[in-house]
């Protein structure tokens, strides 16, 4: 059963990614990246990850594009032009090797390959079955995010706090 809608989305996604690479000026690259993030949000939603689609659309497309454009608005026009740089050895050597290792590693992940299904059977089933009994929240993702793995989310908020403090340290050298 091939899901043509998913294939179309994936092709669109890859074209926007190639578009980001090929484009000449930085600002258009950033805007195509925003479009790439929105497409990624649609792919998340299509794969059944609604929470992730929501956050990707708001955070991935919204906030990071604002940050990119804020950094770029101060650059003079001539700085945002991109010169074609020769591809270094690392890319020529690294890419095919990396591509081979990636294809080698994802081979068993296909559903009809060897019965490699533990990802969705081991801990995940326990979350689905017991999360409502324990936390009374129908949205299992929020229950797992905020209760079972609450410490991860605490450190996650710590990462955001560190980012805010680091930006203050880097940019606010003169007293306000």
């Amino acid at each position: 059963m091939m899901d043509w809608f998913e294939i179309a989305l994936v092709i669109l996604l890859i074209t926007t990614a190639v578009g980001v690479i090929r484009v000449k000026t930085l600002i258009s690259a950033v805007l195509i990246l925003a479009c790439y993030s929105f497409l990624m949000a649609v792919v998340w939603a299509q794969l059944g990850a609604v929470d992730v689609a929501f956050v990707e659309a708001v955070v991935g497309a919204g906030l990071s594009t604002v940050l990119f454009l804020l950094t770029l608005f101060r650059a003079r026009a001539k700085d945002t032009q991109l010169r074609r740089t020769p591809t270094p050895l690392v890319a020529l050597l690294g890419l095919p090797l990396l591509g081979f290792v990636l294809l080698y590693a994802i081979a068993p992940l296909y559903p009809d390959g060897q019965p490699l299904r533990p990802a969705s059977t081991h801990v995940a089933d326990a979350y689905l079955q017991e999360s409502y009994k324990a936390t009374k929240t129908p949205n299992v993702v929020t229950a797992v995010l905020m209760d079972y793995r609450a410490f991860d989310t605490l450190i996650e908020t710590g990462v955001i706090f560190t980012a805010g403090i680091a930006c203050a340290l880097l940019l606010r050298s003169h007293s306000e």
Partner: protein
Amino acid sequence: MIEAHDSLIVRSAGKLLIPLSQLFALYVLFFGQYGPGGGFAGGVILGTSFLLAVLVLGPQAPPCRLAHQLEHGDGVGLMIFVGVGGLCLIGGGTFLDYSNLQIPGWNDEERRSLGIVLTQIGVAADIAVTALSIVFSLGQHHSQEASHE
């Protein structure tokens, strides 16, 4: 600072949109338990609504001044989160074990669901403040460039 936008259409649309998006942010934050959304998305929408206020309404407007005061409340969201986690330690439970919150008469499930709501508020507050603070750091740098250009 980032100056106000001069066109009337943008300013009036902004005046309409900002309260709407803040309301939507709170809805997303508290609806996170029953549907998609939650602390992360709600916090960013709240942060960007204040950013819209700063961009559109100019420095004197009340939401913009509020945004500047908010910017200094860096650690508040994390304090809420660690506070709730720490409160669970009192009853002898492990860190972040909401069923240990000493609320009389509530059984474990209700305590855990309350814990989840409180921590989501903490996460949303932290993200909103940090988004604003990063944008102001980048923006503040922007005005210096313009000043001595």
